[in-house]
């Protein structure tokens, strides 16, 4: 399924992540993890980070997928318009938010509801999801839905068998990438976030760099935990959902 020569890159990335994980693990003891689970500052931080990551992911996937479906039938330059935000880095987007949202109450930077952070992510991630899903939409074979219509399937079933099974896994892939990115990001929350509770990336960086560095093990413990959670999610996706969608799309299981 890998096109081209992917494995040197895979080896390099696996090596880097593996070594990072190994170093982080060697820096921590059980005590660091158990301390985290009773630390109210950490728990509130992880709570607010999940809220930001989940809402950014759900919204960008919904809007991005809808746009991809809408533009799939059209050709021309209109889709390229959506590529513009991809050229501006997240840091730039965050500065735009500071420039243009600062005077808005509730929505602006440094508000407890973190709307400006979510908006910044949407600005970047909607186009990402859009371009991730556009080729999938364009490859969809419309005859499946026509077949469903002829067989008298309900609207929902027609959508599921004609489109859903082909889209499910790419959508989950895009969602996973956005989720993993937004959960542990640093720059955008550092610029736009509030002092308390801090988003987990900022909190971890502070633990890692501040003071006499005695809290560094906790920072490593957090990164091990988050890597673990993301790895678990990935495992669930690839081991359970992917085979399922493949079987369904081949029509072996109803």
């Amino acid at each position, binding site marked *: 399924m890998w096109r081209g*020569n992917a*494995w*040197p890159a895979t*080896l*390099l990335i696996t090596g880097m992540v593996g070594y990072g994980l190994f170093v982080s693990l060697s820096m921590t003891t059980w005590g660091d993890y158990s301390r985290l689970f009773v630390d*109210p*500052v950490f728990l509130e931080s992880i709570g607010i980070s999940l809220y930001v990551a989940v809402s950014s992911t759900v919204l960008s996937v919904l809007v991005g997928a809808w746009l991809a479906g809408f533009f799939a039938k059209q050709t021309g330059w209109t889709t390229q318009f959506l590529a513009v935000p991809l050229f501006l880095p997240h840091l730039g987007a965050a500065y735009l938010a500071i420039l243009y949202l600062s005077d808005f109450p509730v929505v602006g930077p*440094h*508000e*407890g509801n973190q709307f400006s952070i979510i908006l910044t992510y949407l600005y970047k991630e909607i186009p990402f999801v859009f371009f991730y899903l556009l080729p999938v939409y364009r490859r969809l074979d419309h005859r499946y839905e026509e077949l469903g219509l002829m067989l008298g399937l309900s609207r929902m079933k027609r959508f599921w068998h004609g489109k859903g099974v082909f889209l499910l896994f790419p959508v989950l892939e895009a969602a996973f990438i956005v989720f993993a990115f937004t959960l542990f990001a640093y720059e955008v929350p*550092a*610029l736009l*976030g*509030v*002092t*308390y*509770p801090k988003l987990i990336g900022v909190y971890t960086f*502070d633990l*890692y*760099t*501040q*003071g*006499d*560095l*005695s809290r560094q093990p906790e920072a490593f413990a957090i990164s091990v935990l988050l890597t673990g959670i993301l790895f678990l999610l990935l495992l669930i996706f690839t081991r359970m959902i992917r085979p399922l969608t493949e079987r369904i799309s081949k029509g072996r299981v109803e």
Partner: protein
Amino acid sequence: MMKQMIGIAATGLFLAGCASPAAPVQEKVLGSSYTSIEKDANETTVRMYMWGGDEGINAYIDEYVAPKLKKEHKITLKRVPIETADLIQKLRAEKKAGKKTGVIDVVWINGDNFRNAKKDGLLYGEITKVLPNMKYVDPQAQGSDSGTPTDHLEAAWGKVQYTFHYDQASVAKPPKDLQQLKSWVKQNPGKFTYPEVTDFTGNAFVRHVMYGVESKETLKDPKADFKKTWAYLNELKPYLWKEGKTYPKTLAQLDQLYAKGSVAFTMGFNERRAEQEVKSGTFPKETRPLVLTEGSIASTHFLSIPFNAPNPNGALVTVNTLLSPDAQLKKFDGTYWGDGTSLDLTTLSSTEKQAFEDVPAAESTPKPAAFEGKVRAELDPAFFDVIRKDWPERVAR
């Protein structure tokens, strides 16, 4: 397949290729005379890693110091902007990896970062013992770095006082002490804030409050419960910018708020730091200084050399040059930086001393008399840690 193998081999080679020839041994360099150090430093390149967040400071290095070193010693000075905390992390990683030759020759350092660097053995050695210009440096400034003895590992580069700046156009009657500051903040909600305590300046603001409201006994014991400090800050909180629900993350952010007019006060170490900002039009023309009666913490900042500096000779000559009376005078002058000198002016010749006294001060700079009897010594670094640990839970939450 062949192509893949080549790709991997190339990656390996790239990673292995980072090694470079070993730096001269510490004992040899620090044991030799300054004349021979100067000779060895001739026609070399020195990389100076320092905080890059201030244009005036950067211009001082690039436009004054670099040409001076080039002319006097044929040294090419390269300034690399970096956050000092990141720099310490980099050195720690290099030490751990056994990297005997790094890339950093001179570092600008103080406070926590020096404490950590000293503890982990990240500095070159007793550098100040070989520098001729140390004879001008004020022993008081040189002795300790925020309570950590310097032990000759770093050289005092500048000495500054914590000063508030306010916009006279919106603060008609400036508060004289912390109590008046509190009343002013209550009467003018949203017009005051301070950086959060992970920031160097924000942490120091809380230490000023400690100096003002705590008793002498609690100020000696970092383990004490600083109830009065937290109470004072919590009283301010609802009247701060954004109702105290959030604080500027850095001093730079507070300065931006002040420049925009969102708040009426800014603050920081360095009594002259507003001069450049007013001149360039960033800060309002009506910016004036303020020293509260509770006092102002004095802070010294330092230059040092990392344990694995590739060019220690060049680094020593650079540090020595930066301590020379003419380089210090240029730094003191508001043209570029306006940083307080670390030199003891009584050690200078009368013309040199006069030159320092002749430097005009802008209206945003307090007169020397404003600090009389108000200079406070820096608290032990353990206080910094306590503030960072407790403030988020006791105040920000």
